[in-house]
């Protein structure tokens, strides 16, 4: 197959890009090797292509990026301000603000600040301090009282448990009722000791007082029977 000069010129890029089929490649080579017009043309185009591939990437001017950003987004100061405003939307900042707000609410509530009827005077540091101080003392006193009440309850509870676990001791500590014998007799009928009787009475009184002071405990104490 013999190619003409027009055919060769039309397929020149395909030849240079290596896109010709083997048959086409042979025909192309056959023509170029025998044609005085096409041989220098192919060499010239290959040379030009080599020159194009040898062209290096040109470094853009350093101020170009900044000029583009200024033309599109505005001046650098405005861009920084926008970036800062954007950072306010970050979850970390929101959590920080929420925790600070919660702390302020706790402090104001503790100081007796009324959110329904807010007064400017309530926000004075001296007022907040005095109110908070008073509140703290009240809470402290209440907690001390609560702990001491709890101690009494636990003492009673432990005493009751001891009696249940050791019936022998119970028999010794609990006064036995005998229709014939009065307490304090010495006829070896194991009467109750007067000291133990007095302690049981005392605990019973304490429980009644505690039940009166702490209505929450009154139910559970009322259910229990005193020894």
């Amino acid at each position, binding site marked *: 197959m013999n190619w003409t000069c027009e055919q060769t*010129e*039309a397929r*020149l*890029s*395909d030849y*240079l890009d290596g896109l010709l089929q083997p048959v086409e490649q042979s025909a192309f080579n056959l023509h170029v090797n025998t044609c005085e017009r096409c041989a220098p*043309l192919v*060499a*010239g*185009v*290959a*040379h*030009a*292509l080599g*020159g*194009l*591939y*040898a*062209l*290096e*990437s*040109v*470094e*853009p*001017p350093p101020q*170009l*990026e900044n*000029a*583009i*950003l200024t*033309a*599109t*987004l505005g001046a650098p100061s405005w*861009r920084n301000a*926008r*970036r800062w405003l*954007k950072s306010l939307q970050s979850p970390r900042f929101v959590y920080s603000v929420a925790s600070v707000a919660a702390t302020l609410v706790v402090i104001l509530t503790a100081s007796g600040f009324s959110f329904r009827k807010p007064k400017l005077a309530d926000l004075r540091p001296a007022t907040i301090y005095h109110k908070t101080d008073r509140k703290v003392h009240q809470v402290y006193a209440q907690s001390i009282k609560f702990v001491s009440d709890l101690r009494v309850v636990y003492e009673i509870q432990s005493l009751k448990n001891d009696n249940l676990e050791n019936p022998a001791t119970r028999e010794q500590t609990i006064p036995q009722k005998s229709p014939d014998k009065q307490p304090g007799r010495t006829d070896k009928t194991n009467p109750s000791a007067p000291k133990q009787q007095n302690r049981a009475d005392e605990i019973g009184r304490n429980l009644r007082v505690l039940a009166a002071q702490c209505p929450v405990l009154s139910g559970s104490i009322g259910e229990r029977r005193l020894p």
Partner: protein
Amino acid sequence: MEQDAQLVQQCLQGDGSAWEELVRRHTRRIFNICYRFTGNRTESQDLSQDVFLRVYRTLGSYRSAHGGFATWMTSVTRNLLIDHYRRTKRDRITDSLEDKMPAVENKESAGRRPDEQALLGELGGQVQSALTRLSPELREAVILRDLQQLEYSEIQQVLSVPEGTVKSRINRGRIELARILQQMGVRPS
């Protein structure tokens, strides 16, 4: 490529840093296309800025389903370059007439910086000079194929012409470039 599409989405949602990233990624490539087309750094800088300005304004019209962001941006660049070529055609004709007057000094060398002159002494400079003498339609085809290494399908998308036309333009552009280089006295060794 997908990253570009994500950045575009973020830009459309008002994320300035995403746009900054897009500018950083594509400035060099766009500047090089402009420079190879015009052969002038100052013009290329202004044109690159115009390209990004237009892209920023029309970012909402970009559809990732229709092709890559880089191809779309190249298409915008090409349109601006053609507009620029048509706008400055009258100036170039005037310059050409002045070049033919015997008393006028060589404007081509007078307007260039010393470093550009040195560059012209090399093959790269000569090829660049030959490129700017090509007709715009052949020049853009050669730049996109041989300098930007785009596929035929991408060039077809950028130029909005059939693939056969793309191949034909690239072929004619290369042959024409070789002829110009030969006229300039640059011959294969």
